[in-house]
């Protein structure tokens, strides 16, 4: 029995933390939100040199050949720094899918570049005024010889303007219950149009892409044609397990901020951390943090070791960490009082980031149904579950 990260994992964490600290921690994200991406680009290179981008890529393609659990400390550190960039989508979605479903050619094309940090991916899934329901996907790909011709609009594509490639989910046939969908790997420069949308969380860019008769070779399909939904759902296990780790990192920083501030900020002649209203709230935040951490560590372990409860474990971690992260980010502002309401402190970065991940690639209620399904409780498809409340 040993429920802890091993020495190598903690060592990797320390390297990453050192690297992020040297880059100025949250300063990189703050600069990024002001449109200054140069520090972020420098940092990206350093992280790639450290090997971050290749952690889960097999050694034959230039990676470290490690698992989801090895990503955990790295993503926690990224979350602590509110790091911009499509790391989750690349490392915890496209990489595992390429490793499992990619053709030799696809792997050779993409994996070495990802490992080297010269290619990153985002996900193009949801469409305007639509939910994540697979059956509402309209973006269409029609076969033309050995090509696919794609038409449609995808929105809320994270960092579409920061990445080189996209994993696109398109309709290739009629369907229902997720049938008739396919996953296509396309390059950003193949997209007809891309616009950046205004997002509350400016640490991640949100883009909308338009595809007009975009023709790509059939060989870009990952997994079987028309079976894309099942492939995507498998990728989501990696993505949401990793997302929960990213959120834990943010929560860790938040709890640190609140407790440190409560020790030094004085009102009524004493540190505000002495007042139980503040003290006990920070304790509750700490409980949330540790619970989220335990859940996400276990979820990634369960994924790596293919435990029977992995689906329930992953979506439990995701729902808990998501809700707790919002709660903590909000409390953090209140604990800081007036100064917490300004751009001066980092409080707002964490709040906006928490909102970004609230409905990211799914909703809380949908995740809970996934938990329920994973545990074999009787299941019926929810009728309408866009939202998290």
């Amino acid at each position, binding site marked *: 029995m040993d429920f802890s990260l091993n020495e190598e994992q903690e060592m990797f964490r320390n390297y990453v933390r050192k690297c992020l600290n040297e880059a100025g921690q949250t300063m990189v994200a703050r600069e990024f939100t002001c449109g200054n991406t140069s520090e972020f680009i420098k940092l990206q290179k350093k992280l790639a040199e450290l090997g971050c981008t290749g952690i889960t890529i097999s050694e034959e393609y230039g990676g470290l050949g490690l698992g989801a659990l090895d990503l955990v400390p790295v993503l926690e550190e990224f979350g602590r720094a509110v790091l911009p960039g499509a790391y989750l989508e690349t490392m915890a979605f496209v990489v595992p899918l390429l490793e499992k479903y990619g053709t030799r050619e696809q792997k050779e094309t993409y994996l070495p570049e990802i490992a080297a940090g010269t290619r990153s991916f985002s996900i193009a899934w*949801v469409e305007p*005024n*639509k*939910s*994540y*329901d697979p059956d*509402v996907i309209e973006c269409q790909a029609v076969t033309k010889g050995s090509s696919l011709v794609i038409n449609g609009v995808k*929105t*809320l594509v994270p960092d579409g303007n920061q990445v080189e490639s996209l994993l696109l989910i398109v309709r290739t046939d009629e369907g229902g219950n997720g049938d008739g969908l396919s996953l296509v790997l396309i390059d950003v420069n193949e997209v007809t149009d891309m616009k950046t*949308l*205004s*997002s*509350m*969380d400016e640490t991640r860019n*949100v883009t909308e892409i338009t595809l007009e008769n975009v023709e790509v070779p059939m060989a870009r399909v990952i997994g079987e044609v028309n079976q894309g939904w099942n492939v995507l759902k498998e990728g989501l296990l990696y993505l949401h397990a990793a997302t929960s780790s990213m959120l834990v990192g943010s929560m860790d920083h938040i709890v640190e901020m609140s407790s440190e501030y409560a020790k030094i900020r*004085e*009102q*009524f*002649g*004493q540190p505000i951390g*002495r*007042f139980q*209203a*503040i003290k006990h709230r920070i304790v509750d935040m700490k409980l949330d943090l540790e619970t989220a951490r335990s859940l996400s560590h276990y979820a990634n372990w369960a994924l790596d070791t293919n435990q029977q409860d992995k689906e329930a474990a992953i979506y439990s971690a995701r729902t808990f960490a998501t809700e707790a992260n919002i709660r903590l980010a*909000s409390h953090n*502002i*209140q604990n800081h*009082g*007036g100064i*917490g*309401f*300004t*751009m*001066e402190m980092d*409080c*707002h970065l964490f*709040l906006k980031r928490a*909102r*970004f991940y*609230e*409905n*990211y690639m799914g*909703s809380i*209620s949908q995740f809970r149904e996934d938990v329920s399904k994973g545990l074999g409780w009787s299941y019926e498809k929810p009728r*309408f*579950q*866009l*939202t*998290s*409340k």
Partner: protein
Amino acid sequence: MDFSFTKKEERFRLELRNWLEENLPTSWPKEEEAYISFLKNWQRTLAEGGWAGITWPEKYGGRNATLMQEIIYHQEMVRADAPPSINYVGIHMVGPTLMQIGTEEQKERFIKKLLTGEEIWCQGYSEPNAGSDLSAIKTSALKDGDRWLINGQKVWTSYGHIADRCFLLARTSQVPGKKHKGITVFLLDMNQPGVEVRPIVQLDGRQEFNEVYLTDAVCSDADIVGEVDKGWQVMISLMLHERAGIGAEVFTLEKQFNNLVAMTKEYKVDGKSLIEDANIRQKMADLYARSRGAILNYYRNLTNTLKNGQPGPESSIDKLLVSELTKEMLEFAVSIQGPHGILWKEDAPINSRWQEKYLYSYGTTIGGGTSEIQRNTIGERVLGLPKDLRA
């Protein structure tokens, strides 16, 4: 029990409503400078129509409005989405205080100009180390011949960057162990070299508040309100003037809930209105109950004020409930917009104001006394629970 309004009150409402119909600006400028003159114009328009200081005596340009008329005024202003009063501090704080304890000269110099918005006032209360604990202010005023030299830093000064004058708390003497003593209220001229104003950027990106740095800023004896060292009492007696409490916020909450209902009917995802989702309806019904409860509590406290002539400590209940609920409701409003809800400004799925108001709402449980301070007030003054130990 009777929720009706008297004929006189209804006439008042009608008069205001008619006036608003004719005078309400139709478009709001977005650009900062234009927006400020727009607000100043609105203030002048209000004053000219006799709708600026309605509770004031007629001789100061008011209309001696009753408390109920004041309530109606708030209701109608919220209903009409009228622009905010740029001179809130002047009209709700400075004016009433001067009328009560100001010198004749002060009344003469300031009251008219603040009513018309010719002079904009700001409030100089909070300091970086005196937020919840206002009595900890350190800004000092030292007598230097026939003038007072003021040094220190104020913060959270709304409209500080455009204000002409400041209703300022400064420490004029130290009384060890009695921090509430030795504070004096000054009417400070903001247009002088010793006053430097720096805007604070809020988390929603707006700049409503300021830091004000005072370096040998000058006041004269004539700028003192009430007695030297007795500023705390001035501040307390001022609070008792706020008979209508947080009326504006209460009616805004009510309106926001109605907007929320409209939004959930109109906004469609996958072709379905949000309100078709049973879970959303359940939560909306809960928010309805609690917002109605907050509004009705306000009316109940108002009834007490009407009977007793002045508000009790229960007004802290209104502040706490309404601010917490406003925050929760706006969070819900953004949350149910699903993944698209992260977008704002021109890309907001519905209207960017939801996202903006949501972020802004984080200030409502901090400003004007944090929720923690309100809970202490209610616990100690309403329930009679023992006070916190002081170090």
